[in-house]
């Protein structure tokens, strides 16, 4: 909710949760001219203010989803920038980072500009485009990071696909330094994964489904931490889902490679929820509370 012009908006009675300012309790929030003017237990409410009763509700800073697929351009039958950002704000996400596996992929300014134009037209969540690491997401040549950054990309990724070539990953990490771009990486060794559809283990064996070993993620995570150390480049590990990844990142932190306030990113609920534990049959629509706890804990 935002106020415009000289409007004053007051949110009363809600539970304000703001980790960055260490607030968790009932507070009154005053918004003046679109900016937060006060967060306090008792506030004098101006007479011209619009007051919203939010007792029993939570009031938090807008969430940022670092990893979404808006599917536009190219797959608008699945999603568009408009529908995606509408879903985002409905869930409290005021900003999203849009992955580049569109059709055509976001490896040039034209696609980036299209996404930003659609986002501006929808005027819902802020969209931060993520450009490709490799041209066409083919994993062979570098994309034009300079052009992508200038057009508005905040990071680069080949998401949807891993960067299989260590040589390309190394060069991408180095080249991105010139433009201050982090690399968001999809860690999945394609040779280890093959045609797997779930975690390798007893559940997959019982169901007769091909499984992916957790190490398919681990080997790439270890590789990219090593390359980040070699080059000084910035790596953001997307959708971390294995214990091996957690161990590797903890070790990297212990060696001073990770800044203190750098949380691991977790992915959307769907993937994390589908552990072997709750795949009791072939339906995967159960959102276990286990998943929520794992996601929210930033010190993992």
């Amino acid at each position: 909710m935002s106020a415009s012009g000289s409007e004053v908006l007051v949110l009363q009675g809600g539970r304000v949760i703001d980790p960055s300012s260490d607030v968790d309790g009932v507070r009154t929030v005053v918004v003046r001219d679109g900016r937060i003017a006060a967060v306090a237990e008792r506030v004098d409410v101006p007479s011209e203010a619009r007051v919203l009763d939010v007792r029993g509700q939570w009031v938090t800073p807008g969430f940022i989803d670092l990893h979404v697929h808006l599917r536009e351009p190219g797959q608008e039958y699945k999603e568009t920038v408009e529908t995606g950002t509408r879903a985002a704000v409905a869930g409290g996400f005021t900003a999203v980072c849009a992955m580049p596996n569109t059709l055509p992929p976001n490896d040039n300014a034209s696609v980036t500009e299209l996404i930003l134009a659609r986002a501006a037209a929808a005027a819902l969540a802020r969209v931060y485009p993520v450009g490709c690491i490799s041209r066409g997401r083919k994993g062979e040549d570098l994309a034009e990071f300079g052009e992508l950054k200038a057009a508005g990309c905040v990071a680069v990724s080949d998401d949807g696909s891993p960067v299989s070539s260590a040589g390309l990953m190394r060069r991408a990490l180095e080249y991105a330094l010139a433009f201050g771009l982090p690399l968001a990486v999809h860690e999945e060794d394609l040779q280890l994964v093959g045609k797997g559809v779930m975690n390798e283990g007893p559940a997959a064996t019982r169901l007769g489904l091909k499984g992916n070993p957790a190490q398919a993620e681990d080997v790439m995570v270890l590789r990219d931490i090593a390359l980040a150390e070699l080059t000084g480049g910035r790596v953001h590990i997307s959708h971390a889902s294995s214990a091996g990844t957690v161990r590797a990142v903890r070790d990297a932190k212990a060696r001073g490679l990770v800044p203190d306030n750098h949380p691991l990113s977790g992915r959307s609920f769907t993937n994390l929820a589908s552990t072997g534990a709750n795949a009791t049959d072939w339906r995967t629509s159960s959102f276990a509370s286990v998943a929520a706890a794992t996601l929210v804990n930033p010190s993992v």
Partner: protein
Amino acid sequence: MIGRHRHLIGLEGLNREEILQVLDLAVSMKEVLSRPVKKVPSLRGKSVVNLFFETSTRTRSSFEIAAKTLSADALNWTSAQSSTTKGETLLDTAKNLEAMRPDVLVIRHSASGAPNFLARNVGCAVVSAGDGAHEHPSQGLLDCFTIREKLGTLEGKTVAIVGDISHSRVARSDLHAMPKLGAKVRLCGPPTMIPRGVEALGATVEHDLRRAVDGADAVIMLRIQHERIGDPLIPNTREYSKFWGLNARKAREWLKPEAVVLHPGPINRGVELSSDVADGPHSVILDQVQNGVAVRMAILYLLAGGAGEGTRAERA
């Protein structure tokens, strides 16, 4: 001899006095090139063999003209017409040529260290015309000569070298020579093109072109090749040109008015250098070519002139 050196393999092993010995002599050699009769008899009866395993018309011709201006005989041996295609090793080729008693072997080879190998295995003087990504000493010397000629001195000057430093033997030779003459060297290029540990060789690194050329007295632009298969250092020459290429607007807005722009050639016009800068007022590229002959004359004179056991040089 150049100082105590019988060969010229690189500038890393030369001290300041030895570098100046070549540069000062090249001044006199340049004067010879301005005469109506561009010939002096100093190396009459001596022979210079150009052993070029990499194609290069420019450097080879430069050494050839230098030899001939000194009245030496020049023989060109290029790998296209060679027996290496029949599998003869570098050593065999050189030994065979040496049997014909050349005074100087000028070698260009794609393997770093080839001139060094040759110098240890033949009896004549060896000059490197470029080996792999290791060094190109005559280019480094002519760059120093050109900057000194245009700016008066290298002492206290700032030189920016821009391009694929990791694959550039020219950059390495420049880097070995210029600080010894008092210059500060800045290396610039995308991070993929700056080799690890280059600061240990005495340069500072700056990835942003504008900051790299800010206050620079000389800017050396290196040729960019996009043809490296399997190891993509840049997405394409288009993006390279946008961020690291020098065009007229950047030259006008970022360079000191008296700064000079150099390029070892051949130029990829429109990539690292636009035509209007290559042909413009800052450019000393054509001077470099002329100075190249003078510097190579100095090198050949010092290495081939005087093979007897006489006393130290003095005018009689």
